[in-house]
């Protein structure tokens, strides 16, 4: 028998001894998460302003800073504003295709030093190490967001080709750009998307999905709330009114 068989056999032997269990069921999963997701989107076509308002409220409650622009082209100005105020300039960004547009020229023109992540992996170890140093030294990280959850003020980011994990993790200031397509109301709705994503996996999807609810925090010393332990000290969410992907 393999170690796996031995382990599971032991579990089965113990399970067989249980008596008087109460009937219990797991949570009801959507049979067709794609269809449910569609329904959610349809409902939000009308309800989105309220959801956005709730998102803003909750996001600010957890220490996030909310911005709103008319179109993607308005994002560089917001980013530059944040950078200038803090007197920082080194920025790393997701690949243009993942952001929904190439914002780097506009950012550069506003005095930032933007750097785009490669659209895929770097086979060369040295090149990868150099890139990591660059990200670690960056002060701003610019990403998209796959979901924005109103109930909790959370941003959900899936890792993958052109959308590395570190962009939203190593720089002290994280800026995420999203539009109506990402906006949902609740954690329960997020569950539908997680079900959907686990069923269809196009190439380029990465291994990690991160729920980010405000800046990194701790209360480990005398329960004093302190921001920015390991992750970003600041998180900004920029809502774009015009659909980012047309």
């Amino acid at each position, binding site marked *: 028998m393999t170690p796996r068989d031995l382990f*599971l056999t032991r579990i089965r032997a113990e*399970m067989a001894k249980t008596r008087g269990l109460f009937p219990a069921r*797991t*949570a009801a999963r959507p049979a067709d998460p794609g269809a449910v997701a569609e329904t959610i989107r349809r409902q939000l076509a009308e309800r989105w302003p309220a959801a956005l308002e709730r998102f803003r409220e909750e996001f600010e409650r957890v220490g996030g800073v909310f911005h709103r622009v008319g179109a993607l082209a308005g994002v560089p100005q917001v980013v530059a504003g944040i950078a200038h105020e803090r007197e920082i300039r080194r920025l790393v960004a997701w690949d243009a295709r993942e952001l929904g547009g190439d914002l780097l020229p506009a950012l550069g023109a506003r005095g930032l030093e933007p750097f785009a992540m490669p659209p895929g992996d770097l086979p060369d170890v040295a090149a990868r190490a150099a890139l990591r140093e660059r990200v670690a030294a960056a002060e701003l990280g610019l990403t998209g967001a796959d979901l924005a959850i109103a109930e909790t003020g*959370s941003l959900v980011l899936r890792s993958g080709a052109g959308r590395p994990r570190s962009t939203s993790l190593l720089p002290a200031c994280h800026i995420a750009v999203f539009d109506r397509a990402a906006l949902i109301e609740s*954690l329960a709705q997020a569950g539908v998307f997680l079900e959907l994503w686990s069923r269809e996996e196009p190439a380029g999807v990465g291994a*990690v999905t991160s729920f*980010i609810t405000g800046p990194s925090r701790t209360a480990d010393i005398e329960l004093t709330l302190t921001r920015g332990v*390991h992750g970003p000290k600041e998180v900004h969410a920029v809502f774009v009114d015009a659909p980012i992907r047309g």
Partner: protein
Amino acid sequence: MSDTDLSVPFRRRANGALKDRHLQEALTIATTKFIDLRREAFGEFPEGEGLRDLAREIKEATLQHLDRYLDQLIDSVERLGGHVHYAGTSDEARRVVLDIAARTGARMAVKSKSMATEEIHLNEALEAAGVTPIETDLGEYIIQLAHERPSHIIAPAIHKTKGQVAELFAKELKREVAADPEVLTEIARGELREKFLKADLGITGANFAVADTGTIVLVTNEGNGRMVTSLPRVHVAVMGVEKVVPSMTDLMVFLQILAKSATGQKLSVYTTLVRGPRRAGELEGPDEFHLVLLDNGRIGQLAGPLRESLSCLRCGACLNVCPVYRQIGGHAYGHTYPGPIGILLTAMLEGPRSVKDLAHASSLCGACVDACPVRIDIPRMLVELRREGAERRIAPWTERLAYGLMARVLGSPRLYRWGKPIARLLQRPFVRGGTIRSLPLLADWTQTRDLPPVAARTFQERWRDLERETS
């Protein structure tokens, strides 16, 4: 060192904690704050009560088919290119991790907070094998620098002041800094950032593992969970077998109540869902992913008296509301898991003898059941452990004799009736002004409290008269 000395009897350990004025203050402030935050969070979340019931049901349903869900989890993880290991004991679990470290030539391991790796005492083993383990949760980092153990499941350094932390940093990191949480946190950020970028091995626990997708779920506030699973080239997750949940839909039920119970947040800052090693096209993430499934006494409780405690989410809510924990803190318990749930988990890991005294460290007030997100009936299981103590003669013979005598007297109305005049006779020298201020047999009890004497006429002795009264 500050590690609890288990040769000291529990009562003395507890009393030591009662005399630690700083600890007392810290405990009161922390537990009160956690209680308020939790109450507020559920106060504005009316669906919370139903979700707690549902969460409990999911845990139970999962345990009823644990073999199936683990089988599925293993398949899912392996399909993603991860490796699954099986550890029956702490020792086996440590060996698995050490083998991985040796094979991959790891010199430094960064860890995100994990009770499972505390439970198996992994750090000592890594150090002995020449791998430097670095705890990266700020509280755990402080504890590690101080060579102590966590005193609370979610706030490990709850017992330390900022002044003590500043002294510790000065001594261990050679950095003279102000006793300001913000400054101290900034120092730790710098120190640990360097380690994250340098470490070869990332070690985590798992708050949940989703069978259907092979997803390991880590919940943190600081972001160390993300660092540890993204930067080192190898990721090892150590999890108790009971942490598996069937689906993403189930997971969301738990996420809706976990942080609210622990810290009163709607959601912790980072919920990180990890599916195996780095994928094709991904720039970052570990080349290797290992999942260590840990038994360590859990499987034996599937049909055992402590089965219910397999539903525990490790949120710490029961600690905060426990009147005993609130007085003595985590260290006095003397084991990895403190508080009321800790007594049960200790019994699970180390057997009923290990909690001979701890099983009685509860007034059975039931505050823990109310606070528990999945409503684990902790007092019922504590009574079960006491029963085991009595029936398997773990309890001292003097105690068993006393209770045997009590059962005899209370079982016979005649003995019970005769006992009263005898008690009145015996208590006579100690009754002053209708109260007993000191009684030799209960000297410690009467140290702080008066005891009422057996009444001159008990109710039964008055009933005849009372019967004749007309209303």
